[in-house]
């Protein structure tokens, strides 16, 4: 989730009220933003991804001001017609939508320019899904000639000077030479042509999704009027982005102008800041919230969140992207009401509890084992091939993770004894005998399962001591099976982790459920241990299924 830094003085001016520090902290948290830090000069907040309209100082202050009751209700923005056009060519099929606007009467200072850059980046990261869904650009209006064309071109045939570079280069070099080209070339994977904005005098304004041109795209303190473009793969998304940007600029004192966007099949005028309407069902609101709010109370609460309420309908500001359903209005009503004001209550609702039967079974097994003096251990489900296979002298088929950050944990465990060996290995300096067990999930391929991966719960026991031997581990197994009144047999078997002739396969009702034996000295040495180790691994899922039949 994006974090933004806000100048406290500017914020207070925008809000129109100064709150004491403690009150400020409290109100920010209850507005639905995560307060990270606040001091005399700065407020640092985390904005939830459903509220991109709060990513700017202006947007955040706007929401805060109405929340604390200073400037409530739907904020009106006046949009004038510019009379200019943007022509969309059908060649931009890889990024077919654009929305544009002009804002005049701006009075930028250093900080505002930084702020504009910040919101462009943060908005593109969240709302624009890291520029894949949408990206945005601002240009000083006085360098641009209308009409503007939005069109796709072969980058080999375009030359321009990208913003931040010293000279003109071929557009095909941008992905190599420009930092944004390198960062976002994944967005353009598979593109043969790239979308460009080109002005009336054939000047390249920008190459998407990367960078503005130096010639037309450099906003600075002298800029009083800007042209804004949003492009992307989803029309609704670029409309919302434009609304968020222009309302922010209007809150900085700017005047918004619309343009006609001429698509091959239709013409739209952007930005459109008319509020959407949504019906409010008072009964539904009160049922969900467990309150008894009257219509005028709901009106007041909606106004606290920047909405208007008329004729049983909420008027939704054009910069709100998160109101999909009436339930979203209900949350805003709850926030305005104050989460701290809800009185928690437990309904008199009789239901019968039930613990999962297999969970009970596992617990009983674990209790029996701890009664025998064994200590339960707790390990990760992730491991690595070396521990699961090489150090155990075996070769198993493992489920691998696609993208683990750590090479120590890049597979799912196929068995549990290696985890116990690791624990013994890291406890060499502690008192012996060491008797440990664990119950954990193991993973193996199985096309019959829904995920094509089978998960079993397995018990593993390991004993390390001078005197441990097959008899000792066998006695534990025997006691366990006697305690749960289960007959079993053991047949001789081979297993590379165990000593030949001292390893058995445990069979219950014809099903193989466990290995049991003495760990081979080679494996013991692999783990840098110097004590004899005996171990067993028992498939509890299999065992439980067998006895439940």
């Amino acid at each position, binding site marked *: 989730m994006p974090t933004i830094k806000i100048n406290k003085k500017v914020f207070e001016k925008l809000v129109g009220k100064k709150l004491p520090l403690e009150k400020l902290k409290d109100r920010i948290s209850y507005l639905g933003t995560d307060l990270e830090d606040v001091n005399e000069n700065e407020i640092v907040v985390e904005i939830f991804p459903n509220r991109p309209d709060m990513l700017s100082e202006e947007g955040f202050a706007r929401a805060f001001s109405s929340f604390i009751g200073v400037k409530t209700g739907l904020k009106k923005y006046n949009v004038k017609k510019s009379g200019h056009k943007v022509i969309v060519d059908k060649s931009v099929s890889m990024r077919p939508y654009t929305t544009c606007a002009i804002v005049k009467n701006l009075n930028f200072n250093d900080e505002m320019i930084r702020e504009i850059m910040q919101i462009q980046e943060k908005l593109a990261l969240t709302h624009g899904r890291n520029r894949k869904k949408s990206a945005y650009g601002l240009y000083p209006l006085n360098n641009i000639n209308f009409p503007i064309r939005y069109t796709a071109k072969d980058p080999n045939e375009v030359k321009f000077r990208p913003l931040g570079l010293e000279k003109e280069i071929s557009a095909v070099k941008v992905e190599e030479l420009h930092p944004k080209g390198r960062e976002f070339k994944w967005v353009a994977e598979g593109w043969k042509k790239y979308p460009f904005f080109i002005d009336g005098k054939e000047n390249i304004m920008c190459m998407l999704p990367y960078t503005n041109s130096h010639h037309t795209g450099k906003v600075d303190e002298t800029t009083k009027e800007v042209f804004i473009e949003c492009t992307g793969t989803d029309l609704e998304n670029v409309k919302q982005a434009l609304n968020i940007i222009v309302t922010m600029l209007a809150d900085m004192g700017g005047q918004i102008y619309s343009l006609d966007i001429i698509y091959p099949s239709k013409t739209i005028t952007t930005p459109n800041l008319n509020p959407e309407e949504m019906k409010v069902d008072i009964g539904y609101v009160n049922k969900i919230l467990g309150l008894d709010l009257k219509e005028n109370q709901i009106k007041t609460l909606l106004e606290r969140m920047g909405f208007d309420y008329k004729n049983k309908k909420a008027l939704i500001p054009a910069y709100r992207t998160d109101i999909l359903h009436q339930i979203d209005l209900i*949350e805003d009503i709850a926030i305005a009401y104050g989460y701290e004001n809800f009185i928690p209550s437990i309904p008199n*609702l009789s*239901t019968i509890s039930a613990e999962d039967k297999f969970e009970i079974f596992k617990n009983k097994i674990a209790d029996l084992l701890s009664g025998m003096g064994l200590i*339960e251990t707790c390990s*990760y489900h992730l491991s690595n091939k070396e521990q699961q296979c090489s150090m155990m002298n075996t070769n198993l088929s493992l489920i691998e993770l696609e993208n683990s950050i750590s090479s120590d944990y890049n597979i799912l465990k196929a068995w549990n004894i290696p985890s116990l060996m690791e624990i013994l290995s890291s*406890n060499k300096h502690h*008192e012996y005998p060491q008797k440990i067990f664990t119950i954990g999930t193991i993973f193996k391929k199985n096309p019959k399962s829904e*995920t094509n991966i089978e998960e079993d719960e397995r018990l593993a026991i390991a004993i390390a001591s001078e005197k441990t031997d097959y008899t000792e581990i066998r006695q534990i197994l025997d006691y366990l099976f006697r305690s749960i009144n289960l007959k079993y047999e053991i047949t001789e078997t081979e297993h590379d982790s165990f000593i030949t002739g001292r390893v058995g396969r445990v069979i219950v009702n014809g099903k193989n459920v466990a290995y049991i034996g003495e760990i081979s000295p080679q494996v013991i040495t692999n783990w840098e241990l110097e004590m004899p180790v005996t171990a067993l691994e028992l498939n509890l899922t299999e065992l439980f299924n067998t006895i439940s039949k």
Partner: protein
Amino acid sequence: MEVDKIIAALHPLERKVLPILRETSSFEKIAELTKLQKVEVMRALQWLQNKKIISVKQKLQEKIDLDENGLKYRDKGLPEKTFLQLSNKPITLDEIGKRSNLSKQELSISLGILKSKGAIEIKKERGILISITNAGKNILNKGFPEEDFLKKKFPIGIFELNNEEKRIFESLKKRKNIVKLNIIKIINAELTEIGKKLTAQKIDSKNIIDRLTPSIIQSGEWKNKKLRSYDVAINVPNISGGKRHFVSQAIQYSKRIWLDMGFKEMTGPIVESSFWVFDALFTAQDHPVREMQDTFFIKNQKYGKLPEKKLVNAVKSAHENGGSTGSKGWQYNWKNEEAMKNVLRTHTTNLSARTLAGLKKSEIPSKFFAVGRCFRNEAIDWSHLFEFNQTEGIVIDPNANFRHLLGYLKEFFRRMGFEKARFRPAYFAYTEPSVEIDAFYPVHKKWIELGGAGILRPEVTKALLGEEIPVLAWGPGFDRVMMDYYDINDMRDIYKNDLKQLREMEYWMK
């Protein structure tokens, strides 16, 4: 009376040591006379001191001991003696060297010593010619007093030497590796007033039984003897038993709470298709949580199977246009392939989604819970792990509302030991309204985030249940609560499995 009681409680070691204390207070001497090992004497003295029978005083003392050459000369004689014996007839220095085992250094030292004593005469002709004097002969007859000194019993305190011996010690000290001074701890045990009274009594060990044995019981021997009393307040060595891991203990407790509140347990897979982890929970297919940096994907079993078509279509239309819920949906083309991707569950809410999809009408209202391991693709450090425990709950109740949600959560955390819980607005893709739960930690005097909750969105319940019933849902993390209880500061310690720590760790006593 007092004294009798003390005598009755004396340990066999104490019984051996105590009578000796009348004769000596020296630790060494006690060990010698009782024929006990030094550790045994030490233990006995310690116990006796604890009972105020003796007072043990330790002081540091300088003791003289023989060094390497000292030991050699004690056994083989001093080099100057050998030298002088060989000088009985005039002899060259080289010849003495050949006929003795003396080193060059020993030769020159002997030469110096004997010359200063006037025991030899030195002439320089044909090399160095040496002959014994009358004084020398005298010395040979009387013997060297240094040799007598070396034969004393070492180590020995300087204060034990007479003046002559002191002089010899000083002269030997100047020579190489003959004597050395060591700092030695001298232990003395003096009887206290009680001790003196005690030793005046007869301390009998024959009529005292130390350990009760089967044969003593059978023979009836115990009838005529006294069983020694113990110091019941004494410290004993630690032992430890088998036990459940502390995570299991805590999980058992939290399960108990949900069960007490009438919840049924849900269990299910850890590897799960994206359908159940994300899509069924109205998380758009381009949502950042579904990217590689947050979620573990599977390399060699990349895809799972989707459930029945009706359910898949309901979820698909919820995403694309809100289906029949009146929602706008996310307005994009929902793809099967994305939903089939296997992931390690990022929350246990996949279990809730499965439960809702399989719920019969007759089972409403009902309440379910789960406690389980979840995963996120994160590097490990003191406050981050790639595995964590979550406790999940859902309430399916046509009359459920937001205040009930807060009520259930408050009650759960109260039972977990947090008297104060507060709720703040939050955002989750699949709940609305959403809540962040903070609990107040009295020790740290601050609010700690414990995780999220909310009412499932209509897009979720309609697709899974087939109708729009309010479903309260929560999934707070569990590890922080546990770390607080056990006072663990580093998350990695949860899975460290240090056996000493596990053996000695406090038990979950709630």
